[in-house]
């Protein structure tokens, strides 16, 4: 069965079982390996992508349920050069191994889109779904605040 998926602005027909998790379609079928597998069951956030702008765990989304909605992956979010969030990440020297970071950037991007000036509590609530085994949480927190400032032209 062929399913039409809209990913990063392009439509792709994919021939997979309807219950295939979106994560594996992105990674194996479309070769978009920036989206990571970390747990497979909505526990770690490594697979975070945007569906119609909202952060979702692609490991727990059946490909057949996406329909016409627009999927954005890490590859799509930075198609036109680094975003403010990514710049903030670099400036705060956030990453370590980096494996969680696509998911972190996607989650933070969605957070800032919905809440341009998040408080620490807002950051806790939004970002606690994303595990980082390298433990770079305080740098992520700083980078989100920095991105908020960059966005508002404060720096």
């Amino acid at each position, binding site marked *: 069965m062929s399913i039409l998926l809209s990913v990063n602005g392009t439509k792709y027909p994919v021939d997979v079982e309807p219950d295939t998790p979106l994560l594996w379609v992105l990674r194996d079928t479309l070769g978009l390996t920036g989206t990571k597998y970390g747990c497979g069951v909505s526990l770690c956030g490594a697979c975070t992508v945007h569906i119609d702008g909202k952060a979702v765990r692609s490991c727990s989304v059946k490909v057949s349920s996406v329909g016409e909605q627009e999927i954005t992956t*890490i590859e799509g979010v*930075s198609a036109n050069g680094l975003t403010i969030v990514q710049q903030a990440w670099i400036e705060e020297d956030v990453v370590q191994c980096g494996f969680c970071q696509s998911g972190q950037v996607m989650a933070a991007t969605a957070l800032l889109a919905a809440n341009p000036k998040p408080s620490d509590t807002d950051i806790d609530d939004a970002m606690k779904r994303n595990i980082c085994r390298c433990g770079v949480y305080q*740098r992520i927190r700083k980078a989100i605040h920095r991105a908020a400032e960059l966005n508002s032209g404060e720096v």
Partner: protein
Amino acid sequence: MAIKRREFLKGSALAAGAFTLGFMIPIKTRAGQAGAGGDTFVPNAFIRITPDNSVTIIVAKSEMGQNVFTVLPLIVAEELDADWESVHVEQSGVNAAYNSPWFPMMLTGGSSSVYTSWETLRKAGATARAMLLGAAAQSWNVPVERLATRNSVVTDPETGQSATYGELAALASTQPVPEDSPLKPESEFRLVGKDQMRLDSGIKVTGKARFGLDVAVPGMRYAAVARPPVFGATLKSFNATAATAMPGVIKVKEVPSGVAVIADSTWRAIKARDALEVDWDEGAHGSRNTTSMLEEYRALADTTGFVIMQEGDFGALAAAAEQVIDVRYEFPFLAHACMEPLNCTVHDQGGSAEVWTGTQTQTADRSKAAAILGYEPEAVQLHTMFLGGGFGRRAAAYSDFVVEATHVAKGEGVPVKTTWTREDDMRGGQYRPMTVHHSKLALDKKGNPLAWHNCVVSQVLDGFEELTGTKIENFDSSQVEGLKEQAYPVQSLTLEAHLVESPITCLWWRSVGHTHTAFLKETLFDEAAHAAGIDPMAYRLNLLAQHPRFIALLEKVKVMSGWGRELPEGTGLGVAIEESFGSIVAEVAQVKVEGKKIRVEKVWCAVDCGFAVNPLGVREQMESAIIYGLSAALHGQITIKDGKAVQGNFNNYPVVRMDAAPEIEVEIINSGAKMGGIGEPGTPPIFPAVGNAIFAASGKRLRSLPFGI
């Protein structure tokens, strides 16, 4: 090949962005061949300079977050006087030139990357610089002494003449390799010793960095393996009828570790693997559980073990002591839970092969893969990918994930990527061993320690046996590391050990034996301080007076944390200090205890690694090591029931997340002592610092991990 030059990313002009980062360019033909000739200057296995003045520095360690991709090139660039803003970094292939000083193999582990490479890389840079200077002197016919270098350019201050390293590359290749090129004095360092931002940020925030899991090569297939759920179990028989009929399934085959399904996607392989009907012979361990193991360990810890060390007469001193603290400390199995689940891609090409994986032990992995395929090691090309965390798990002594993937791909003729699910990874063993320590500390009237007796019960780490090639008997060095050389003055120290046989495989886990010995030592001496009625910070400062580096660090965290200040009810500070991997780290944790809830609010950390090559990287490793240890301290345990690991994913193996992550402040003391490691030493003190803070906050002394009230 799909993964090659695509990996290049020209970043933004921002901090880390001005670099290009190369990855996976095979250098096996060039590495180690000084003066390879041609227009390219390859003075040694770490440097390559081409006529377009591009300076490439080769990294022979695995990048797993600890920042070797930045700090190792930095050392070369410093002595080479290369233009740091335009340096290229490249991952090495497997080559004896990159072997660890400890074992005849490449190894990224033991927090050793920087301090064991420091001299080698400085010399590599200095030698290349000398040859470039020699080339300039020859071509300008001037004395070499008056020439200077800066940012990949040689200049003659007298004539104003200059040439880029690239322009000099061809001639530099013909220069004799100097025996001994002088190294810069520390005062002339321009790059080293200063905060340097990571070079790999750009590709890691854009999803372009390629981890083992991301390997995609033409014709690749995907595999998942059904492994025995019970430790020590073996395969009896399997029925693959249902699995074979599933979409995309190409093959089902038996491998030594279980039954592999090869399919045309990861998901299809996993689903078909789950549909296999496998009959396992559970062997002798089908009813094993950690509850009864713990009982056994406790009982053993009370009996005399193999005596590793016996200084002084504990019995006599204890008999005359004012009091003896007699306690047991208990530690569970811990999984590494790297963010990237294990995986390995192997392409058996018939007579030769390629392997792509994130590994800390390239040479051993390649040899094992070659042996399985029946090829010479040199016929196997191993590509080190970025590691989504290592923490010791990817220094698998028996190369378990490479060996298995090689069996899966053997004879297939196409690349096959074997992916472990999170559950496969977490239940696959190779844990920090479950451990019990029984400690007795005799104190005099003033509460000063007199004599210490410790008996440890745990099991062998697979790693040491495999690496040293000798069967470990009597005790495993990790059982007592940190204790044999501990700094507290006691008249008598006795260390005993029991080794327990178990089918549950164990391995090094970030900071290895120090994960438990530091907790035991720093909790025990905290208990002694309280027994003596002395402030635990003052008690340590007094006892460690002969150790100036310890004192400096304790004084530092004392000030940083405002030790002694008034704290709200239910909040406490705890301190701990540990020397490991050549560095010393002191930490103070502030913990709030509310009912059964333990909240670590803040951690102050002071580290002395001798000399911080990249202070920013050192601080980041401390932050990382503290959170990693904190996850284990608060939550981490693998329990065994009916021979199987109970925990399989982050629901029942929880880790610290954003909302529980304390703020961490790090300060560095450059004592000038011999350089030590930084990847691991931040982890050990956090366990006792938090435990001691819980005691200060609540009066509850917790001696068993993970903490629970």
